[in-house]
């Protein structure tokens, strides 16, 4: 052997994990939910999702190439995930220009203006969703009904979400038992037979993806489970106090954006805490805020706001909640 040896500091082996593979696994984990969405919402879901992914990737490329003048990094897959998640958080009949504007906001404002991947304080897809919700409140809250809207896009038949039915009903002074017959059964809700954002409806499909993410060690259980537990306990207490004014905890878990928010949005690496304890605090905060907004707030749904608010606390959490160092507490037993 004539050529010189490679000399580099240890370690000399690597896990082989890469940003691209992690992102790919997130995309894969979202596929069951996408399949359900295609089944219930048909061409609308397909069109909005593809358009969202395409525009996110394209905007990232254009911004990096022509504005920042750096080597585009679209192959890392992060823009695909953002596009997919943004689409999953909007109705399947959303007009194309809102999808494109939302993608531009997600990539251009929420991600790139803060320094790109790894530097954005807020989840880009959620920031875009909330920005669009405030800018286009009507289009962003018209929910196509599942199955009947399969072959329709803009002209889809729409109806309220279970959470909106609940909020309206309670506002009118109805009790839970009076509202109950307008709402699908728990099992139907779990399977996703309800109006809602195109990717959030099926708790079952989203939980299958959760299992995949845990199996592939993409995320840990801490953030999702602490969110679920907080929502379950908090709404459970309210329900026990007055079951006629408050929906039961299972209803709260399987409706709206709890599943997709807790499993896929709150666990976004960049915008969630770095330490196990911090993750639990983060999840607790999201759970509390979600229930507060749902029960006492003006909006029927609060997961997006809750996550974004807690995103803002992440630097603080990282600073003050440190992992326990080895040898910090001197312990002697045995």
């Amino acid at each position, binding site marked *: *052997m004539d*050529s*010189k*040896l*490679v*000399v*580099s*500091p*240890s*370690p*000399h*082996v*690597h*896990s082989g*994990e*890469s*940003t691209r*593979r*992690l992102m790919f696994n997130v995309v894969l984990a979202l596929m069951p939910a996408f399949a359900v969405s295609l089944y219930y919402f048909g061409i609308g879901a397909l069109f909005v999702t593809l358009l969202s992914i395409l525009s996110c990737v394209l905007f990232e490329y254009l911004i990096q190439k022509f504005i920042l003048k750096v080597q585009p*990094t679209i192959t*890392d897959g*992060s823009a695909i995930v953002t596009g997919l998640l943004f689409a999953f958080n909007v109705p399947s009949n959303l007009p194309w220009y809102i999808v494109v504007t939302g993608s531009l906001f997600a990539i251009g404002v929420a991600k790139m203006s803060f320094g*790109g*991947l*790894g*530097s954005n304080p807020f989840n880009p897809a959620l920031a875009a969703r909330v920005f669009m919700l405030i800018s286009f409140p009507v289009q962003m809250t018209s929910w196509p009904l599942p199955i009947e809207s399969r072959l329709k896009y803009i002209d889809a038949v729409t109806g309220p979400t279970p959470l909106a039915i609940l909020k309206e009903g309670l506002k009118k002074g109805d009790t839970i038992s009076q509202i109950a017959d307008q709402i699908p059964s728990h099992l139907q809700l779990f399977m996703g037979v309800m109006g809602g954002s195109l990717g959030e409806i099926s708790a079952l499909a989203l939980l299958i993806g959760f299992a995949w993410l845990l199996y592939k060690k993409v995320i*840990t259980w801490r953030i999702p489970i602490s969110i679920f537990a907080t929502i379950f306990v908090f709404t459970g207490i309210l329900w026990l106090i007055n079951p006629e004014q408050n929906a039961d905890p299972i209803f709260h878990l399987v409706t709206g954006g709890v599943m997709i928010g807790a499993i896929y949005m709150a666990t976004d*690496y*960049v915008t*969630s*805490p*770095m*330490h*196990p304890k911090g993750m639990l605090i983060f999840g607790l905060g999201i759970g509390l805020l979600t229930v507060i907004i749902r029960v006492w707030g003006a909006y029927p749904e609060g997961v997006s706001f809750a996550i974004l608010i807690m995103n803002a606390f992440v630097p603080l959490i990282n600073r003050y909640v*440190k*992992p*326990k*160092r*080895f*040898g*910090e*507490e*001197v*312990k*002697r*037993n*045995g």
Partner: protein
Amino acid sequence: MLKTFAKGGVHPPENKFSANRPIEVLSLPAKVTIPVSQHIGAPATIVVSKGDKVKVGQLIAQGAGFVSANIHSSVSGTVESIEPVLDSSGYKRPAITIAVEGDEWEPTIDRSPELKRHIDADAQTIIKKIAEAGIVGLGGATFPSHVKLSVPAGKKADVLIINGVECEPYLTSDHRLMLEKGHELMVGIQLLMRALNVDKALVGIENNKPDAIKYLSEIAKEYPGITAHALKVKYPQGGEKQLIKALINREVPSGGLPIDIGAVVHNVGTAYAVYEAVQKNKPLFERVVTVTGKNLPKPSNFLVRIGTPVSELIAAAGGLPDDTAKVVNGGPMMGKAVTDITVPVTKGTSGIIVFPAAESKRKAESVCIRCAKCVSACPMGLEPYLLIRMSQRMMFDKMEHERVLDCMECGSCSFECPANLPLLDYIRLGKTEVNKIIRARKN
């Protein structure tokens, strides 16, 4: 549920290709090059001159002070030169080169193969013999063993821990030693127990070596106080602090030593060397070295004289594969890449690994995505993502506050990082700078 340490850790592929290869005695090289700095502490003082005739086991460099170690000739022959030679540190450092002539051992060495089980020596004698034999930690850290056995006043050891973990991938030298020299190892452990005046010794072995666990548990019944324990496979369990935590659930305090919590840790290779030194009067001049690699024709475990060029070991293992681009002295996680395969085997050489070109270069780094995998991987509970940022911004005082000196450079963070960030490189830089700050503060 098998025991392991609590915090962090990773699971690199084991690749223990040479696990079933019995230890072979490597034939003598034509020449050995013995560096005088093979241990932590002061380099030994050379006591021979060019042209001197030496025998196997003859003292050729005397330990300089307490934290240092004697060095003995590993061959018989003539001292050819005394000059700086490139060693595995990558630097030229003083070394004694000896041309081999025959194989004449010091007559004081007992070369009989019989197991000598009866122990006459008292604690003082044992420690003295260990110091004389130049024994250092053979797990790779090469800290002089007699220093570890000299418990400082006011402290007391109550348990001896024997490290048979061999958590580094590829390496199998400790594994083979446990299988082939079990009884000698047990007597060595008894000697260490007597030196420390403890009545309990725990041998920790990872569960990927079930044959060694079974064998040592079986024979340990003949040696009161010694027990073998299976541990769940997790890197870096062979780290002193991690092994103590796994076996007896005590945590060495930050900045402290195992003796602070009553434990002393020695490697199985060291315990075997102690047996040979005390019972057989044999100084440390040879050791078991694993020579391995994915494309190496014959991964092997060799008993090698100190000072033998690494190239001889590779030749005996079937020769360097054509696609080799990196040769590592030690394990893949903590070993050092050598600049040249002529460098000599030293007391700390536990293995030689040849890597093909495809696995030799690091992949391009991308940006940190804050996935927190480094935080989860760190066995010391540090935050590598934060330390690299501080190091890059030269915020060394902050790094000290973040306990960068607790880092033992196990490499788990760099191993896990999906962005291929050189986390450990920057942490090392930080450690060096923090040590400078601490030294300046003392002066």
